[in-house]
């Protein structure tokens, strides 16, 4: 079961990289990056999952005493939470650069930006 999720996550990473490499439009590339980002997060969470256990939140259903036997590892979840928030920051920055490039050049096609070509 977890293998299916892992395979889907790997597929997302590969598809995202493929899209980022073949597209010429900057916004399409950013979309592909965000898809790959989601795939990485999915893989991390799927690796941290343990069958038959539940979320690491204590309430009336999961008491303090049997927490060790019933909850899953909280560390990957905390890492992925951080990764998502940083991911939106990176995306916002990329979008701002793309908009700025559009303002100066009037195009979003990456093959038109030839100043640094050698």
């Amino acid at each position, binding site marked *: *079961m977890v293998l299916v999720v892992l395979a889907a996550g790997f*597929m997302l990473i590969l598809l*995202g990289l493929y899209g980022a490499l073949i597209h010429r439009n900057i*916004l399409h590339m950013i979309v592909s990056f965000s*898809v790959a980002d*989601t795939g990485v997060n999915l893989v991390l*969470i799927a690796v941290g*999952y343990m069958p038959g256990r539940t*979320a690491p939140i204590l309430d009336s259903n999961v008491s303090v005493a049997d927490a060790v036997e019933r909850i899953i590892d909280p560390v990957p979840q905390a890492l992925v939470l951080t990764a998502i928030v940083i991911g939106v920051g990176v995306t916002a920055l990329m979008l701002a650069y793309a908009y700025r490039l559009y303002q100066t050049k009037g*195009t979003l096609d990456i093959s038109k930006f030839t100043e640094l070509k050698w």
Partner: protein
Amino acid sequence: MSGLLSFMSFVICVALVGAAWVAIRSTSLPMAILAAGLVSLLASLMFLILAAPDVAMTEAAIGCGLTTFLFFFVLGRVRGGEHD
């Protein structure tokens, strides 16, 4: 994880890869952005089934919500420009 949740996660994973395919291959930008939002949404459901409600909520509010809004704002700004 019971059989019911296994079944649901299988359906969601197939839909996830399909939505990612649409996001990568479509030539129209609004469609690609919507499909990327759908990928985030389905991934968030998957996080919930994998017993990570915190991450599911973050992905729904930030990955699927705010990122899509930012994309549409920028798309509204560059509209009328060249598209490939």
